[in-house]
């Protein structure tokens, strides 16, 4: 049965970029309904819905909101995480480009629920056009009384500000983002205290991903019970945007109930590029353990993927066909983590650097059997030993390379280098 889009229902309808057009499509009714609901009741609804964070960690959104201390002695903030930098991920870009008011409405509902009067949207610096779309939509929302001193006549005050980053993956990490917002290098903070207690500018702060927030208006409109019956089970609920990329015919964002299998997504994306065979895939972005083709029927949800030793992450599904060298692919990801490590913690700064170097020499045919053991040691040294999850992310693909695809590493060591030379896509195409 075809899935009726929820989050992407307005994609392709440019009308919804204005408040008036968004309202014609039913928009901002949820905000009115939410403002008529007690904030605590709203938090309860989001808890009941089972909505888990769509940015990568999968933390229950309502529980996060519930951590914000009550009372108005200090300002509270929402920082919407639009830093979308996990390789393979582009869903938030699509949500912001095509339906900025759905996002603004989700932010406003969260702010009401936790009684925050200020929302910063921290958007990656490269998303220049998307930041412009948001700024235009926010200006329109101020004019229409959606934002400002008196949100929809409720007396609730809400200010919203787009804040552009400047190119650093680590700023997608909650406390790295707060540091960056405050005008510093984006180096993650020691936790605790958690942002819910000491967040932006020393005040209680919720940080939620764009897609997470975009779910909220629908939960408020249609109720947590409706939301809960979408998905695999009560721990994996709601609609999900999957970003399909790599060796597929039609890369793109595909919305379905959370828990789709790779095969189901491939069918919608027109199958494997050029009809080739699937070799492996990363189900949750660069940080996820690479899975072999025989996991293609695993439901892509939080718990099913965790059980496979991988993760849903940002649901960036990177598909690799039979011509892909997984040493080279992992080396590319290792280079990314090496570049993006903020350098604060030694295991990460050193580990990401070493993992790139070791994979380099294996790929070049200069590796030795001891290198496999070295990779395992690097993984053990990095996992769980640092201030933030970047080192754990770097371990994800690295460990799966030696554990799941060890024979491919062996082939490099035995054969004096890579048995699968890098493909020349455009030269191949020119020859046909």
């Amino acid at each position, binding site marked *: 049965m075809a899935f009726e889009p929820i989050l992407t229902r307005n994609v392709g309808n440019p009308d919804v970029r204005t408040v008036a057009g968004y309202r014609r499509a039913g928009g901002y009714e949820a905000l009115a309904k939410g403002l008529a609901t007690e904030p605590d009741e709203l938090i309860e609804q989001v808890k009941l819905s089972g909505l888990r964070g769509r940015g990568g960690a999968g933390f229950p959104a309502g529980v996060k909101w519930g951590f914000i201390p009550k009372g108005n002695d200090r300002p509270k903030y929402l920082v919407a995480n639009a830093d979308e*930098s996990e390789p393979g991920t582009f869903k938030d870009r699509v949500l912001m480009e095509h339906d900025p008011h759905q996002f603004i409405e989700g932010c406003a509902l969260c702010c009401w629920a936790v009684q925050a009067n200020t929302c910063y949207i921290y958007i990656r610096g490269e998303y220049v056009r998307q930041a412009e779309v948001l700024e235009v939509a926010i200006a329109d929302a101020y004019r229409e009384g959606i934002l400002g001193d008196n949100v929809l006549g409720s007396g609730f005050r809400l200010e919203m500000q787009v804040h552009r980053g400047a190119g650093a993956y680590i700023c997608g990490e909650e406390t790295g983002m707060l540091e960056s917002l405050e005008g510093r*290098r984006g180096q993650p903070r020691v936790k605790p205290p958690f942002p819910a207690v000491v967040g932006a500018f020393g005040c209680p702060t919720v940080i939620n991903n764009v897609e997470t927030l975009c779910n909220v208006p629908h939960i408020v409109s249609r109720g947590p019970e409706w939301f809960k019956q979408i998905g695999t089970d009560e721990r994996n609920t709601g609609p999900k945007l999957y970003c399909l990329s790599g060796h597929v015919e039609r890369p793109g964002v595909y919305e379905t109930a959370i828990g789709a299998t790779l095969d189901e997504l491939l069918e919608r994306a027109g199958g494997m590029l050029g009809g080739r065979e699937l070799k492996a895939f990363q189900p949750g972005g660069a940080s996820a353990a690479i899975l072999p083709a025989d996991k293609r029927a695993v439901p892509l949800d939080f718990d099913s993927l965790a059980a496979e030793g991988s993760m849903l992450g940002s649901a960036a599904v990177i598909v690799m066909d039979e011509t892909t060298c997984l040493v080279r692919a992992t080396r590319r990801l290792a280079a990314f983590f090496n570049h993006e490590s903020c350098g604060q913690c030694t295991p990460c700064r050193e580990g990401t650097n070493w993992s790139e170097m070791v994979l380099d020499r294996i790929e070049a045919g200069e590796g030795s059997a001891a290198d496999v053991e070295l990779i395992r040691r690097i993984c053990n040294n990095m996992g769980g030993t640092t201030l933030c999850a970047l080192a754990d992310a770097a371990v994800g693909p690295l460990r799966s390379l030696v554990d799941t695809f060890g024979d491919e590493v062996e082939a490099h060591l035995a054969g004096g280098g890579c048995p699968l030379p890098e493909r020349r896509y455009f030269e191949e195409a020119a020859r046909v």
Partner: protein
Amino acid sequence: MANGAGPRLGEKARKTLDALRERYPTSEALLLPALHLAQEQWGGWLPDEAIEAVAGELGLAPAKVYGVVTFYDLYHQEPVGRHRIRICTNLSCALRGATEIVETVADELGVEADEVTPDGRCSFTGFECLGACDIAPMAMIDDEYHGPLTPDAVRRLIRGLE
């Protein structure tokens, strides 16, 4: 410091910053926006005088501003071309020919990554994931995303730049 004899941000940038001040509880929080504005004013990069100007405007130590500049990939400490080409080389683009796009751009411009063409027109760099794997392989030219690219398409785009 802001009224001293040192280099200053232009009037337009200062007005933009003034409007932003009431949006943030600290002036330090204006640093990233201020650096974006300064980089625009100084032709796409941040020479020492731009760093001094931003430091003066926000009442921060230049060393602190410098530390922030060195952290972020979008701030440049060396001159760049009038047009800046950032080619995504991360996995999803690499799986669809990003290497060939990088080679083509280097060949078309006759320079290596991070060098500026002798006429000052262009510079390029390989970049981490730009969040557009749906149009892989892709590149960001100035503020615009382009993809899916082919070697021919990227040559045409570059030739169309002034």
